[in-house]
């Protein structure tokens, strides 16, 4: 519980501590390398420009003309600001929230003022009205727009944070299913007498598994770590299920260092065991694939499907939790799809290929 509380109430105290985490921790700036953030900023800024054009125009026919004039200042400064933010995203992420926000505001204001001034100078020789106040007005508009966007991202982040806190809690309480824990302990108790060394190894695996469950849910980890953890989990399940559990791994070397949210693969595999292998009396095969497709990593998982045995609610909760965490980390760049094809249940996850630098 104490960890959950610190998540809810502790963001302001721990800005610097969490600044290292890759994206959108509490009270941090949005991730400027994210496609979702980019799209939202572009759409919002252009919508604001369109509204301003509509307000200034006396007649409807004037709107396109007005918008064109606004766009001449808006687009270059918008794209310039975003480019700088993209390049300097690591630097901005390291700043405390208030300093970061101030820096972004200054950047946007400076860009618009500069672009507006440049436009005014360029158009002056042609005799157009080139008021010196243009630069100042543009800077003001930019500040207003950037401030509104910052507020929006802040609200959005807040609305997601219960999901994050819950992800942690759910990880602590439900991700390690009580059913799994007690059956596992039961299996280890048998080993204590018959094969003390295997019992030791099994308890070590359990310790690692619980440590990962309790680790920081916001820090991204390499796929290789997730695979190692999942293998430990599978070793424990093999104790109980023996030959009934068959796993086929196919992971490209190129994606081993791709960063992903922690405790994502293991719960999916646990689901596959619970819904796909345990209900069957014959050996059940779980297939796990990871490969690079363009700029994304595709992670896919399949297990035997037993329509009569679906504990649907539990399944959906686990999948919904994973979907939410993916959205929180990668926004629109990640996707989770499920399908039943033939006798197998399939899950496909796509996420951007981010690597530690």
């Amino acid at each position, binding site marked *: 519980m104490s960890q959950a509380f610190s998540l809810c109430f502790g963001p302001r105290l721990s800005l610097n501590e969490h600044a290292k985490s890759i994206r959108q921790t509490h009270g941090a700036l949005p991730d400027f390398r994210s496609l979702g953030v980019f799209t939202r900023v572009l759409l919002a800024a252009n919508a604001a420009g369109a509204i301003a054009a509509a307000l200034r125009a006396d007649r409807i026919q004037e709107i396109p003309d007005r918008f064109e004039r606004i766009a001449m200042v808006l687009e270059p400064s918008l794209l310039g600001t975003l480019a700088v933010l993209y390049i300097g995203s690591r630097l901005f992420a390291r700043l405390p929230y208030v300093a970061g926000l101030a820096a972004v505001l200054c950047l946007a204001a400076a860009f618009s003022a500069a672009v507006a001034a440049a436009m005014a100078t360029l158009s002056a020789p042609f005799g157009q009205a080139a008021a010196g106040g243009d630069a100042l007005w543009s800077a003001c508009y930019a500040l207003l727009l950037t401030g509104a966007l910052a507020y929006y991202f802040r609200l959005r982040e807040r609305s997601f944070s219960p999901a994050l806190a819950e992800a942690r809690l759910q990880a602590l309480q439900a991700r390690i299913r009580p059913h799994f824990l007690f059956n596992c302990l039961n299996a280890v108790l048998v080993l204590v007498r018959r094969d003390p060394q295997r019992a030791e190894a099994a308890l070590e695996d359990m310790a690692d598994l619980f440590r990962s469950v309790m680790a920081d849910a916001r820090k991204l980890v390499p796929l290789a770590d997730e695979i190692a953890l999942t293998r430990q989990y599978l070793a424990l399940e093999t*104790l*109980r299920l023996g030959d009934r559990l068959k796993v086929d791994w196919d992971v490209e070397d190129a994606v081993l260092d791709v960063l992903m949210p922690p405790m994502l693969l293991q719960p999916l595999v646990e689901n596959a065991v619970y819904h796909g292998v345990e209900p069957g009396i014959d050996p059940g095969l779980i297939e796990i694939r990871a490969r690079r497709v363009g700029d994304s990593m595709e992670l896919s998982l399949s297990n035997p499907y037993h329509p009569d045995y679906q504990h649907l609610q539990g399944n959906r909760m686990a999948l919904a939790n994973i979907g939410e965490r993916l959205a929180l980390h990668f926004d629109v760049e990640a996707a989770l799809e499920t399908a039943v094809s033939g006798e197998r249940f399939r899950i496909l996850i796509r996420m951007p290929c981010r690597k530690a630098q």
Partner: protein
Amino acid sequence: MSLAILLVDDEAPARERLRELLRDGCAEVPTEVVAEAASGPEALSLLPECAAQLALVDIHMPLMNGIELARHFQLLDHPPGVIFVTAHDHYAVEAFELNAIDYLLKPVRLPRLLAALRKASAGPRAGRDEFARADPGPRRYFSVVERGKVTLVAVERVLFLKAELKYVTLHTLERDFLVEESLNQLEQELSGMFVRVHRNCLVARRYIRGVEQMKPEPGEDAAEPHWGVLLEGCVDPVAVSRRQWPSVKELLKSGLLKGKN
């Protein structure tokens, strides 16, 4: 005289653990493991030859859960007593408390196991009704006793159920079986899979392929049509009563038949 015990659990280590504990406690409560099974159907195939007096039964198993297994045991002349063993089944445990059914939690401790063994060999046992009340889901098998053994008929193999006097006949593609149960109770328990077409008949939704008009029986009013349900693999249609016809028609229209398997 030692207590003859049957162990039923799909996980081999869990069975081994129970065997070890029983051995440890042999001085206090003499027991002998007479058989082990990895599933409910396997356990039923071992009875009554193994002559177990008591079964230690896991709840969460493939094919058939432990509670359903206990229900099928009750058809035998001398059903073994049942102690459930479970890792974590919240609802089951609540139901056991309500119906005075004994259970152990995994990992099992020796003193608790011995107490349960003593109670089982002395006290009264839970019966068919208690187990039926504790079972959360519909059964997956019907059971019939033939030559002293329990024969299982998977629910999804049954085309239709027909009540005749005090029995219900299960019609499958291969043959018919007689079970001593009430059609009304079966209708309630299996309402997702079967639909009533007549006062004395339930048909499996998944096998319904359509309806056809039946020939009027002699003496009947030919003007009023008489309908029958066509079932997959079945030559003769099953008669629909006038009273059930509107609801059967409704069901066919809404196309719910296939989805509700």
